[in-house]
């Protein structure tokens, strides 16, 4: 029991959950879970949440979080598709659309970052407000209806395209994860994120420009949210003003389950990605078990609470083991 406790303190609740769920779904999924096609499906679905979680974790590392990611994805989707539809030449349309989309999400990140870092308002309040602003804008611009007739290549390449048999979204995700990994473990920015989140006073005393780096975390989160939005739009081949409603909750849950502490200063991107994998796995398993999507919402909420409670336990056990 003691060594189990020690493992728990070190790696968090994720490995235990993963193992438990793999067993559960294999048993209850009637043989449909553990198939290559299902698992490939799961990996493809994970990519969107994975990239978003990578962005979310940056803000959590700085002792904050971003509740506006879901609405930002919706806004990105609307802006991207509206731009694409407005341009005649298809290649131009795709490129400009993507740039505009990612830029829009980056702008929301900048707005979040400025208010939180410079005006020192709580991330909860700022991103909650932004969530409403972005969602409102998405609905306003799209008049509440999906936008169709996007250039077919957009969906063909970015949505369902493959290179050497590997789906392009997976390739993009891998690339982003590697970039974030290097950022966090080998660059000044990463180091400072951990310092600012871990002890902002100590960071300040060591000459770290706390406001600058807090700002950066939200901007980067915005950009990654934009990338997620563009990719999701490509996947569903339309601009959806209601895209991503569950994403704030899922990305925070994924990060926390993956070992990123809400207190800030702790956690790695690999763990966060595994957290995202877990969330998607649970959704997939529940789908295979024919659990209704309403009930799935309940389960997800309980999971988030469970993850945060476990994170809290883990931290207090760490303290006692001193």
């Amino acid at each position, binding site marked *: 029991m003691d060594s189990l406790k020690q493992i728990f303190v070190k790696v968090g609740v994720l490995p235990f959950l993963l193992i438990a769920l793999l067993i559960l779904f294999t048993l209850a999924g009637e043989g449909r879970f553990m198939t290559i096609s299902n698992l490939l499906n799961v990996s493809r679905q994970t990519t969107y949440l994975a990239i978003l979680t990578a962005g979310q974790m940056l803000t959590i590392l700085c002792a904050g979080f971003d509740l506006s990611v879901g609405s930002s994805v919706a806004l990105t989707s609307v802006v991207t598709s509206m731009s694409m539809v407005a341009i005649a030449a298809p290649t131009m349309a795709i490129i400009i659309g993507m740039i505009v989309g990612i830029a829009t999400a980056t702008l929301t990140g900048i707005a979040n970052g400025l208010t939180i870092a410079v005006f020192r308002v709580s991330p909860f309040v700022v991103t909650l407000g932004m969530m409403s602003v972005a969602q409102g804008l998405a609905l306003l611009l799209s008049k509440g209806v999906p936008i169709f007739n996007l250039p077919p290549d957009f969906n063909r390449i970015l949505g369902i395209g493959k290179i050497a048999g590997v789906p392009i979204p997976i390739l993009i995700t891998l690339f982003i994860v590697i970039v974030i990994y290097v950022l966090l473990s080998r660059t*000044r920015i990463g180091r400072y994120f951990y*310092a600012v989140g871990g*002890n902002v006073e100590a960071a300040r*005393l*060591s*000459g770290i420009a706390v406001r600058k780096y807090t700002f950066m975390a939200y901007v980067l989160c915005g950009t990654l949210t934009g990338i997620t939005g563009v990719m999701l739009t490509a996947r569903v081949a339309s601009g959806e003003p209601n895209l991503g409603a569950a994403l704030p909750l899922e990305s925070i849950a994924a990060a926390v389950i993956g070992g990123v502490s809400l207190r800030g200063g702790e956690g790695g991107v690999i763990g966060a990605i595994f957290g995202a994998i877990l969330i998607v796995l649970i959704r997939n398993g529940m789908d295979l078990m024919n659990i209704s999507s309403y009930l799935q919402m309940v389960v997800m909420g309980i999971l988030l609470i469970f993850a945060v409670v476990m994170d809290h336990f883990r931290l207090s056990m760490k303290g006692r083991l*001193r």
Partner: protein
Amino acid sequence: MTSDNLILRAENITKRFPGVLALDQVTFYLRAGEVHVLFGENGAGKSTLNKIIAGSYLPDEGNIYLGEEKVVFGTPHDARLKGISAVYQEFSLVPQLTVVENLFLGQELVKRGFLDKKPMFTVAKESLSRLGFDIDPLAQVGTLSRAEAQMVEIAKAIQQKMSILILDEPTASLTNKEVDHLFDLIRKLKSDGVGIIYISHRIDELKRIGDRITVLRDGKRVATLDMAEANEQKLISLMTGREYEDVFPQITNIPSKPVLSVKNLSTVSGLHNISFQIQEGEIFGIAGLIGAGKSRVGRALYGLEEITGGDIRLDGQILRKISPAESLNRGILYLPPDRHKEGLVLCRSVRENQTLCSVPLFERGGLIQLKREETLVRRLIDKMKIRPPEPDRTIIYLSGGNQQKVLIARGLTRDVKIFIFDEATSGIDVGAKIEVYEFLKELSEKGSVVIFISSEIEELIHLCHRVMVMHDNTVSKIIPHSDASEENILSACFGYC
């Protein structure tokens, strides 16, 4: 042995933590009405033993007996119910609540379902004044200084009826007057039959208040002596296992040309008319009572205080923009007094904490050169004898003394010419202190400027070329080493020159 009125027997206590054997078959006896001192280096096991007695930890082996009864404490509350009360170095107060609310936390007085605030206020005011602590009961604890918070912590522990009181470094931030009050209180508790376990590194204090002393080293009990038999040299050699000539090294170098000059400095926080000049190779002490402004001077030089007037010159140039980042670029480093609050990022590794102020120096092509960083960190761990010698260990697992060494060694990760030490030796054991003093000597011999802010007059007298005494946020007197004595410094602290 005869029972000798033993109220506590801790026998063969063993406690293991991940990677370290904190206590190894330690036996400890406490008599009623005695002050039994626990002495040893940081990491020797004193705090661990205290925490086991107070119910925060369970021992892996061994038993605790209160009188004749064997007891097992699952939580600190169990210990509290059995009459064991504790005051730790890490405070258990809620910063957002007031002093009264904290004193009555968990035992609020209630009348007809509502909080009975008036009697609580009266009792709190009485407790504080009985202890001679001048604190406003309605003040929010988060706004109090470390010293004041410590007083509230002590007042809280003393409130309930107890048979055993554990005090862990209770005088760390107190003035002499407050220490005297505390000792009066301790003597009264002794006569009431309370057994007191006292941890401190201040040998002169221990000799005043202690009856017996148990020395721990590396988790083992090395000796238990009557205080009459214990002298400084014996204690230090028992504690460290090494022989020491003197606690303080001889400072022999002579400072040369002026490097830093401050004229008529004033700050928003109340400093005024601060003027002094420091030379290369000088160890410049800053003394003063709590609140006199000694810390503020250091912080103002570093850029942590808003300056309203006067100027600071470095090598003749007036410093225009002052901030921590600018100061570091100029070769000025400030080490704060409260390492947990402002110094270290506890959830990160030793290595990240070590290089926190010098990360840009390890960058090449946008990436941090991890190998080069590790080499330097290992070298510093070696030089400063930091234990355990693991750069990637999370720093929260290190003892206070070792954490302090990591903080201090930051000054060696970049080109620092002016070191501002603010209470560099608070809460660390004598062995580690000696190492810090040696380090200061080394720095001054290399030609660095060392500004040494301290509330320990002995340190100031022995280590500093000059001591600037602060009084009421201004300079009372600058005393050269030849004139430095406890009397002179103290009078200047009170404004008599």
